[in-house]
């Protein structure tokens, strides 16, 4: 194994740890909805929610970075350039994340001064990390970009996947810089902030996971480079074609010109079309391989990624993307339902698939399979489906009682919060959240154990047959 792949395993371990913190913070945040006064003035909803969504961003980012460090030396047939620096940055990244989490939990907030922006919280959703930590993230990503580009240059070989990946790294780094300015005009601030949030998620990350999945499919199913690269180019074209101007669906109600209603609605409505193509591709691949693979968990998580992306992003997104509907659903639990499903389907499942692929190689196992992964797969996906279903019920009740009937007044908001449909949905979200948490525990148990016993027995078998080695 390359040194870069050892680093990738560290990134995966850190990602899975943050995944667990995300689940725990999510459970606490959902308990806040169910029980009034829960951890009041100790760990308020604002903090648990911040922890929940920020750890989600960071665990996925760490999963992406780890995946690239895993595949890069295989793709370019050489060790990653500057891997020692990357190792140092990994530890800096981990320490920074830990400090930020501790500050969020114990300091929580500060006065409205520059000092708070630098050391406590920048206050913008998803990128709350204080400025010093944000600079740290920039440094980590810069080193990551250097690793990828320098390795490709030193190898003297730029494959199609590498070319797409390297171009994608420019906005991955550049768009994060929008996390820094503190613009006092709310509309202006939101306008640019969505560039970071939407264009990261629905353009840059989609392409990044597309590259990672292309590399994974070559390893998992032995798919030829010609096929995965052709499909990657098509995906890039379609995702960028619909995803960039699909940004408009965030501009409906933040004070931007009304032409965004048309642009956002049109391009968002087109977003499910390429996702349908991906579903067809996934079924085709699964069928032509007759569901046979040496790594069942990775295979099923890849399938879950294709279907989850379509259902979470396509179906749940399309339900509320047209402006006439979005007027009522925007900012309700309905949006939360879509967000959970889409992130899980598009990215979470993909990262887990890559981790299983990496473990197969790291533990030198011919056939990777277990009972525990099936349990974790079932529990995680059942938990997620239950959560998004429950949130959908709550969101519909909010959209109906608070927005459509109540006219979005504060009183209507309070009334909708007490509506029986809303309350039941919120309770069921917590219940299915616990199912999801059980799935996470099973996943961790499986990741720690899968392939270890078999690897030992496979190592011992030739010795037993042929006498002492």
């Amino acid at each position, binding site marked *: 194994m390359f040194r870069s792949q050892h680093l990738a395993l560290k990134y995966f371990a850190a990602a899975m740890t943050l995944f667990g913190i995300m689940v725990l913070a999510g459970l606490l945040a959902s308990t806040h909805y169910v029980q009034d006064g829960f951890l009041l003035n100790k760990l308020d909803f604002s903090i648990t929610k911040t922890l929940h969504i920020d750890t989600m961003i960071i665990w996925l980012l760490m999963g992406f970075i780890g995946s690239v460090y895993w595949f890069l030396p295989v793709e370019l047939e050489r060790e990653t350039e500057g891997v020692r620096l990357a190792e140092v940055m990994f530890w800096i990244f981990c320490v920074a994340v830990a400090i930020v989490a501790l500050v969020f939990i114990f300091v929580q907030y500060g006065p409205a001064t520059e000092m708070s922006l630098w050391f406590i919280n920048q206050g913008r959703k998803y990128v709350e990390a204080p400025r010093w930590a944000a600079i740290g993230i920039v440094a980590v990503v810069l080193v990551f970009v250097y690793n990828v580009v320098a390795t490709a240059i030193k190898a003297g070989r730029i494959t199609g996947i590498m070319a797409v990946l390297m171009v994608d790294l420019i906005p991955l780094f550049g768009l994060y810089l929008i996390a820094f300015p503190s613009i006092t005009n709310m509309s202006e601030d939101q306008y640019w902030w969505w560039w970071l949030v939407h264009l990261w998620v629905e353009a840059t990350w989609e392409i990044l996971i597309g590259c990672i999945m292309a590399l994974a499919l070559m390893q998992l199913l032995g798919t030829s480079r010609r096929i995965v690269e052709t499909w990657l180019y098509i995906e890039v074209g379609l995702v960028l074609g619909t995803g960039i101007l699909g940004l408009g669906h965030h501009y409906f109600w933040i004070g931007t010109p009304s032409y965004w209603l048309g642009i956002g609605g049109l391009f968002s409505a087109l977003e499910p079309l390429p996702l*349908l193509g991906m579903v*067809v591709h996934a079924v085709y691949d699964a069928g032509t391989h007759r569901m046979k693979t040496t790594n069942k968990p990775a295979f099923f998580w890849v399938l879950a990624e294709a279907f989850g992306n379509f259902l979470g992003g396509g179906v749940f997104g*399309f339900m509320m993307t047209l402006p*006439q509907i979005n007027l009522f659903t925007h900012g309700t639990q309905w949006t939360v339902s879509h967000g959970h499903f889409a992130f899980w389907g598009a990215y979470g499942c993909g990262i887990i698939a890559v981790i299983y692929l990496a473990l197969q190689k790291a533990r030198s196992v011919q056939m990777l399979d277990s009972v525990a992964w099936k349990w974790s797969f079932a529990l995680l996906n059942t938990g997620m489906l239950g959560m998004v279903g429950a949130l959908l019920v709550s969101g519909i009740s909010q*959209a*109906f009682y608070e927005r459509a009937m109540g006219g979005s007044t504060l009183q209507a908001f309070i009334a909708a919060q007490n509506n029986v449909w809303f309350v039941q949905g919120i309770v069921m979200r917590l219940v299915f959240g616990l199912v999801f948490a059980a799935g996470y525990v099973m996943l961790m148990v499986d990741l720690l154990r899968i392939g270890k016993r078999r690897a030992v027995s496979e190592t011992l078998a030739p010795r037993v047959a042929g006498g002492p080695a």
Partner: protein
Amino acid sequence: MVATSLLLGTFVLMAGCYGALYCFARLRRDRRLAHVAVACYVLQAITAALLMVTALDFWWKALLLASLAAYWPIPPLTWRFLERLHIPEEQMP
């Protein structure tokens, strides 16, 4: 509004069922499954028809009809493309 939204979700969901079942039917060479796939597309068309009587603006309805037409060829075109793509390089003309 809630009904319209759920219909929109059903519209895309039926497209997904049509696409997935179309592939399963091709893989298994199963004509009955192919009919079920077409039935899903018909359900999508019925959903689109129901959406025509909702309060959505004219242009959104036109967009829905256009996308309904676009969903029909996606599975067969993608399938044909994938088959051509999977021809071993030595067999390519």
